[in-house]
C-alpha cells in the first residue's frame, strides 16, 4: 500500500495517513493517562505528613503500611476474596465458553445478556441490588458475600480470553479424538483443557485483578468484618490523607500492572 501511495503528489504514504496535531494530542492523552498515577507513586516517598508538600525522600510510609495490622487483615481479606472468586469464575466461565458454542440462539442471547449486564449496568445498582438480595435471603455480609458477588462480575473477564482461545482450536482435533473412541470427559481433560490452558491462565489473572481492585461492591457488602484493601484505602482517604495512602496505593497499582502485563504476555505468545 505504501508503494502505491508514495507515487502520489502530496508526499509519502505515511504523511497522507497523518492528520495534523493528531500525534500531539495522542502524546498529551498518554501523558494524561499516566502522569496522575506517577504522582501517586512519587508522593508515596514524601517524608512529610502533608502529602503534597514535599519535604524529603523517605520509605517510612511503606514500613508504616506494611507493619499495620489492620492493613494486613484487609490484605488477607482481599486475597481470600480474589482467590476464591477467581477460581469460581474461571470454572463457571470455562463451562459457559464450551456451553455457549452449543446453545440455541435464544439461549446464548440470554446468556450473553446476563454475562454482560454487570459490565454495562452502573456498579452502584448492582452493588445495592446484591445487598438487598442478601439481606432478603438472610445471607450474612462479609467476605463470603463479597466473594459471591465478585464471582458474578469476574465471569466475563475470565470468559473472554478462554473463548478467544476456544474459537482458535481446530475442530478436527475433537473429531479425531472422538473417532479414536475417547469419551466426552476424556476429550475435555486430555484435549480441551490443555489447549485452553493459556486462555484459562490469562482469564484467571484478569478476574483476579478485577476482584482485587473492586471497591463499590465490596464497600456495600463488607459488613463489620469484611474490610478489603480498597475499602480500607477509602477509609484512609476519608479520615486523613497521608503519604501512607499513596504507599499502599502504589503497591496495589504495581500488583495490578504486573498481573495484567503477565496476562498480556500469555495471550500474545505464539500459539
Amino acid at each position: 500500500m505504501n508503494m502505491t501511495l508514495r507515487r502520489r503528489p502530496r508526499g509519502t504514504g505515511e504523511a497522507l495517513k497523518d492528520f495534523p496535531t493528531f500525534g500531539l494530542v495522542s502524546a498529551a492523552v498518554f501523558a494524561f493517562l499516566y502522569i496522575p498515577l506517577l504522582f501517586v507513586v512519587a508522593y508515596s516517598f514524601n517524608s512529610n505528613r502533608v502529602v503534597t508538600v514535599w519535604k524529603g525522600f523517605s520509605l517510612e510510609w511503606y514500613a508504616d503500611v506494611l507493619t499495620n495490622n489492620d492493613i494486613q487483615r484487609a490484605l488477607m481479606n482481599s486475597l481470600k476474596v480474589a482467590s476464591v472468586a477467581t477460581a469460581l469464575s474461571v470454572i463457571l466461565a470455562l463451562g459457559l465458553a464450551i456451553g455457549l458454542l452449543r446453545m440455541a440462539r435464544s439461549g446464548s442471547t440470554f446468556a450473553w445478556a446476563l454475562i454482560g449486564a454487570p459490565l454495562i449496568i452502573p456498579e452502584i445498582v448492582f452493588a445495592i441490588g446484591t445487598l438487598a438480595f442478601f439481606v432478603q435471603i438472610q445471607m450474612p455480609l462479609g467476605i463470603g458475600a463479597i466473594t459471591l458477588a465478585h464471582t458474578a462480575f469476574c465471569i466475563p473477564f475470565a470468559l473472554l480470553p478462554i473463548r478467544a482461545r476456544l474459537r482458535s482450536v481446530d475442530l478436527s482435533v475433537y473429531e479425531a479424538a472422538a473417532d479414536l473412541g475417547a469419551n466426552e470427559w476424556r476429550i475435555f481433560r486430555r484435549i480441551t483443557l490443555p489447549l485452553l490452558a493459556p486462555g484459562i491462565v490469562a482469564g484467571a489473572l484478569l478476574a483476579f485483578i478485577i476482584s482485587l481492585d473492586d471497591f463499590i461492591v465490596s464497600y456495600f457488602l463488607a459488613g463489620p468484618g469484611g474490610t478489603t484493601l480498597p475499602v480500607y484505602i477509602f477509609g484512609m482517604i476519608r479520615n486523613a490523607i497521608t503519604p501512607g495512602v499513596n504507599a499502599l496505593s502504589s503497591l496495589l497499582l504495581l500488583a495490578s500492572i504486573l498481573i495484567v502485563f503477565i496476562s498480556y504476555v500469555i495471550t500474545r505468545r505464539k500459539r
Partner: protein
Amino acid sequence: MITKKRGAAGQGSWWAGAPGLFYLIALVLAPLVVIVIYSFLSRAKLGVGVKWEFSIAPYVELFYSESLSGERSFDPTYLQIFGNSFLYALITAGVCLLLSIPIAMWIATRPADRRTTLIFLVTIPFWTSLLIRTYAFIIILNDNGPINGFLGAIGAISMPIPMLYTPFATVVGLVYAFLPFMILPIYASAERFDFRLAEAAYDLGAAKWTVLRRIVLPAIRPGIIAGLVLVFIPALGSFLAPELLGGGKTSMIANVIAAQFGASRNWPFGAALSVMVLVITLLVLLVFAVLARRMSRTSGRSSWEVLL
C-alpha cells in the same frame, strides 16, 4: 446425548454452560429483580430493609417532598440531581470523544506491531483500581498540588486556584476513569478503515480536513457510537468521582442512592432511584441498538460488533 447444533463431536454440549447460567441468574438477575420489588415497598420504621407493604411512595418522593404536617409539595431536588448527572455524563462523553478520535486514528495508522503495544498502553490504566485513579486527582488538583504549585512557582497566580471539590474536578475524574472505553471502540473501527478511500479522496483534490470529516468520520461512526454508550452509562452512575472529587457539592445519582442505603436508611427510595438508572440504561441501549441496526444497513458493519 443431546442433539448437537454446531461444531464437532466431542466438543462438549450446551449443559456445560448450565452452572454458569444458574449462577448468573442467582447473582445478577435476582438482585435486579429484588431492586425492582423493593422500589414498590414501604420504608422500614426501624433499622435497615423494607416493610412488606405495597407503596408507590418511593416514586412520588422523586418529585414531591412531604412536610412534617403531611403536606405534599413539588420538590425539584432529585430532578436536579438527575439533570446534573446527565450533564456531567454528557460533558464527560463529549470530552472523551474529542480526545479519543485523534489518538485512536493516530494509533490505527502506526505499523501493526507497534499498534498492539500502544493499545495495551491505553488499557493498562483501566486495569488499575478506580479508587486509586480517582484519588490521584485529589493529589493533583488540591491547593498545594502540582498544578497550583507550578502556576505559583512561575508567578502566574498569587493564590491557588480552587479546583478540587468542584464540578470541574468531578468531570476530570470521570473523563480519566472512562477514557479507555471511548478510545478502544473508536480504534477498533479506525483499524479496519481502508485508507485507499482517503487516498482516492486526496486524488480527487480533497483537503485533509474534508477527508477527515467526509470520509474518515462516517467510517468510524460505529466505534464513536459504541464509545459514547460505553462512557455515558457508567459516567451517569458514577459514585467515586463525585464522592471524592466533588466534595458533596456535586452529588450525582449514585451518591444519593448510596446515602439511602447508608445514613438515610430509606431502602425503597434508593431502590426507586436505582430503577430509574436501570430504565435510563435500557433506553440508552435501545437507542444504541436502533442506531446500530440503521448503520449496519448502510455500512455493513454493526456497532455491536465493535462493542463486543
